[in-house]
């Protein structure tokens, strides 16, 4: 089951570059929330703060509070534990090139020392079914490399890999931007199904995509969150002039 995310006064830096400034918002549980905004506005940095990937860069710094459910992730938690609860799908499909399809999905569990083979088989099957890839790969699970799949299949494999560790939140950083329209629509269908079980945060440059999959949408600009509201409100009747300019294509 997904949990809500509460963000209070979040600030983030890369070196001296203040990339996120005073972000406050509540991301609802078991819904999809889209983040839109021009390149470099801080959307990706923001999602990387939610699973503490931001700090893997040595010059990065964060202040403020993020609560996932009851857990204050910057107060009393280890990054590796957070990342198991908060799965992430990246912009470019990044399966482990030397691993089979099966091992890719099982990687998160295996690398954390999980070795119950029968349970692993079930988890791999369930994750691949949840990511709508099972029927396409079930005959080659251990024979083919994850890298041998098409781009769209690879991205669904990466989603399966994230789901296999049983997270509560799924972060997607432009998950369809490197894919063709057919693969994109598959990913969108998937987001629709997955949000009944997970809290989904999706960064996208594609405003139609945000409108299609998300209940809530946040608009980021220059490191600040300009507006956060119900998706239909953002796209039909935004309260901020800058949001309106952006979604009508006047800049960005």
């Amino acid at each position: 089951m997904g949990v809500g995310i509460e963000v209070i006064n979040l600030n983030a830096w890369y070196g001296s570059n203040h990339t996120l400034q005073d972000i406050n918002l509540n991301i609802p549980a078991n819904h999809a929330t889209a983040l839109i905004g021009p390149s470099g506005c801080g959307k990706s940095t923001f999602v990387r703060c939610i699973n503490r990937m931001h700090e893997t860069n040595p010059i990065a710094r964060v202040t403020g509070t993020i609560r996932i459910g009851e857990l204050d992730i910057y107060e009393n938690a280890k990054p590796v534990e957070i990342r198991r609860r908060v799965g992430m799908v990246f912009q470019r499909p990044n399966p482990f090139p030397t691993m089979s399809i099966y091992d890719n999905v099982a990687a998160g569990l295996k690398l954390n020392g999980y070795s119950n083979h029968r349970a692993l088989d079930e988890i791999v099957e369930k994750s691949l079914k949840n990511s709508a890839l099972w029927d396409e790969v079930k005959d080659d699970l251990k024979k083919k490399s994850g890298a041998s799949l098409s781009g769209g299949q690879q991205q669904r494999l990466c989603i399966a890999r994230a789901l296999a560790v049983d997270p509560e939140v799924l972060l997607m950083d432009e998950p369809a931007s490197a894919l063709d329209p057919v693969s994109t629509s598959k990913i969108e269908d998937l987001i629709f199904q997955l949000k009944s079980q997970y809290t989904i945060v999706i960064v996208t440059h594609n405003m139609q995509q945000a409108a299609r999959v998300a209940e809530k949408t946040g608009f980021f600009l220059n490191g600040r969150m300009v507006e956060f509201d119900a998706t239909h409100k953002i796209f039909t009747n935004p309260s901020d002039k800058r949001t309106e300019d952006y979604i009508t294509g006047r800049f960005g």
Partner: protein
Amino acid sequence: MNVETYRTRSIMRALTDRAVTALAILATALVVAPLVAIFIYLVYRGASSLNLAFFTQVPKPVGEPGGGMANAILGSGILLALASSIGVPIGIGGGIYLAEFGRGTKLANAVRFTADVLNGVPSIVMGVAIYALIVNPQKHYSAFSGGVALGIMMIPTVCRTTEEMLLMVPHAVREAALGLGVPNWRSVLSITVKTASPGIITGCMLAFARVAGETAPLIFTALGNQFWSTSLNDPIAALPLQIYVYAISPYDDWHRLAWAGALVLIILIVLAVSLVRFVTSRGVLKGAS
């Protein structure tokens, strides 16, 4: 652009294409030619002296015909096993440090610089250094000191290729592992190193093949031995040493044995490298890059 200039340019492009392809083929031939020439010449000079005795007998005393290099083949095997067990783990460990944990630190820069300098140290200097550090205090030549000399010579090559290969692993692959909640050390060992392993293995094989033919570092350390010996504490025979001794001797049959020894040395290196490649390439999946 009219049809005429289009045609001329098209012909020009085709000619350039041919010329560049021809140059590439020529360059390839020039790369392969020395190895083929050496090999053919070794077969011509050495093959006639190859027989069962060469692989089963130790050298005969001066004047007695026959004899072989069995002890030198075994000795080279022992020395290289010892050298690899020193050079490969230290080299790979150093490379992992340089690429993954020490990136940008002063220590890493110092280690990288040292490795590059070590790589340029003449092999005879390595022999003399090990003589001073191990042979002299122990008061005797030994297989152990020879293995150490060769092992240290392997370190810089293995270390720097490991580093280069790890740096080529895409950042996205590392992030994928970290994003799954895998601890950094585990991600480095199980994902990054594994992804880079074909290149790392190539680096190890290059280092192995290079020291397999080294003579100079062994002159002051392993010394050579006319008899069977497997003890790490005694002088031990090695193919390059034996070839050296036989080649500078005044006897014709020893010269022939030296040629045969050189031929066997090259064949054994090729076999060892192919074997490692074969073993490590099994289990590679369809479509893995």
